[in-house]
């Protein structure tokens, strides 16, 4: 495992270990004090570190491609997606007053018009906007993979999953469209795009996964495999929110489902770390060492 990826997952393991302690306290006492503090302080910090890492690594990967190379655009879009997620985390932290420095509560007041409040703006930037950037980037990658005959055929299982995803998206749109008569804010309407965009990302993820299976277990294959994992985990988190809002999950299960987002953040950060490792490999001598030959 490359060094950067190893550090990301060690950090995640350490963070989740602390999270388990907080969850244990919640189970023992039934109070949200420690759990709330964990997500409030450590959770926000973890997201900031992961999204910053992802953005920096994606920008380094982008810099290795010349302006006329197609992958430069793909990595540029992935970097934009990471930056949007980072901005979303910051905006939400500012809105909720989660930052330890300064009093930002005044900014979280409703400023009307386009967005209900700063938190909603953060949700839009870190959600649909970030997904749109990622969808463009992955679309570009799929085109390149098809060019090299790496795109695989969809199995029956893939098609069944696609059908489910599309059905879920259409049902969500059918629920949301009548609400247009209530004149919702632009932010609310943009948030409705989350499910269709996540469906698009899942479709792309399934196609990318097929091509990864055709490649094997190399660093570049793992890079795109990590994006697939991150998108699937994000979908699971989205489904958990939906289930929780419909009262399908118990209080304990709802609390556990919040940890899903840490896994997604780590998977998103690991993807450019694998690509960076593949690029770095070309500058190392280890491949031609006697042990490798």
């Amino acid at each position, binding site marked *: 495992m490359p060094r950067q990826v190893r550090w990301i997952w060690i950090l995640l393991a350490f963070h989740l270990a602390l999270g388990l302690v907080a969850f244990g306290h919640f189970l023992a006492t039934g109070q949200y004090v420690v759990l709330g503090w964990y997500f409030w302080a450590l959770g926000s910090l973890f997201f900031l570190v992961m999204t910053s890492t992802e953005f920096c690594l994606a920008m380094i990967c982008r810099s*290795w*491609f*010349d302006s006329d*190379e*197609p*992958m430069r655009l793909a990595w540029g879009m992935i970097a934009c997606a990471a930056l949007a997620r980072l901005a979303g985390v910051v905006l939400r932290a500012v809105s909720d007053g989660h930052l330890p420095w300064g009093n930002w509560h005044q900014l979280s007041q409703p400023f009307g018009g386009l967005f209900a409040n700063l938190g909603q703006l953060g949700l839009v930037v870190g959600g649909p906007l970030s997904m749109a950037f990622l969808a463009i980037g992955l679309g570009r990658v799929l085109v*390149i993979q098809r*060019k*090299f*005959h*790496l795109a695989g055929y969809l199995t029956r299982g893939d098609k069944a999953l696609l059908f489910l995803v599309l059905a879920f998206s259409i049902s969500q749109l059918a629920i949301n469209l009548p609400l247009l008569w209530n004149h919702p804010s632009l932010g609310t309407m943009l948030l409705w795009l989350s499910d269709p965009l996540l469906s698009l990302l899942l479709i792309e993820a399934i196609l990318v996964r097929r091509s*990864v*299976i*055709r*490649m*094997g*277990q*190399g*660093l*570049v*294959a793992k890079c795109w495999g990590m994006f697939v994992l991150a998108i699937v985990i994000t979908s699971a988190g989205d489904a958990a929110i939906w289930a929780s809002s419909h009262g399908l999950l118990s209080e304990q299960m709802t609390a556990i489902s919040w940890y899903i987002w840490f896994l997604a953040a780590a998977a998103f950060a690991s993807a450019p770390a694998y690509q960076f490792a*593949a*690029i770095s*490999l*070309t*500058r190392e*001598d280890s*491949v*031609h060492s006697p042990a*490798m030959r």
Partner: protein
Amino acid sequence: MRLLGRWELMVWRRKLPSASVREMRIEAAPASGLDDLQVRLNLWSNLWAQDSESTSRSEAQQLVAERLSRWLERCFGQHVQNSLRGNQSHISLASSTPIFTAFLGRRATRELSRRVLQDI
């Protein structure tokens, strides 16, 4: 007008100092130098693209194919060679360079090619 002036300035700046054709003196290269160049070019073209019809491979070609296979496996995976080979039975620089360039970038591929051709 101003834009045109700028364009002319850019053209003027891009002019490279070059000797006039009359001043150039082309001297005949020694025969041994040409032979050496021909040998090098033949070696390079053999390493670049493995002839699909020929079955025998030189040691250098074999080494390049082995190194490329190892790089392909490390970067992409063990199955990617099947997608690349197509009609050819062996991996060559010509068949593998496009995929390396597409996914790793031109500069990284240049470094990689340098390492593949090291000591050959």
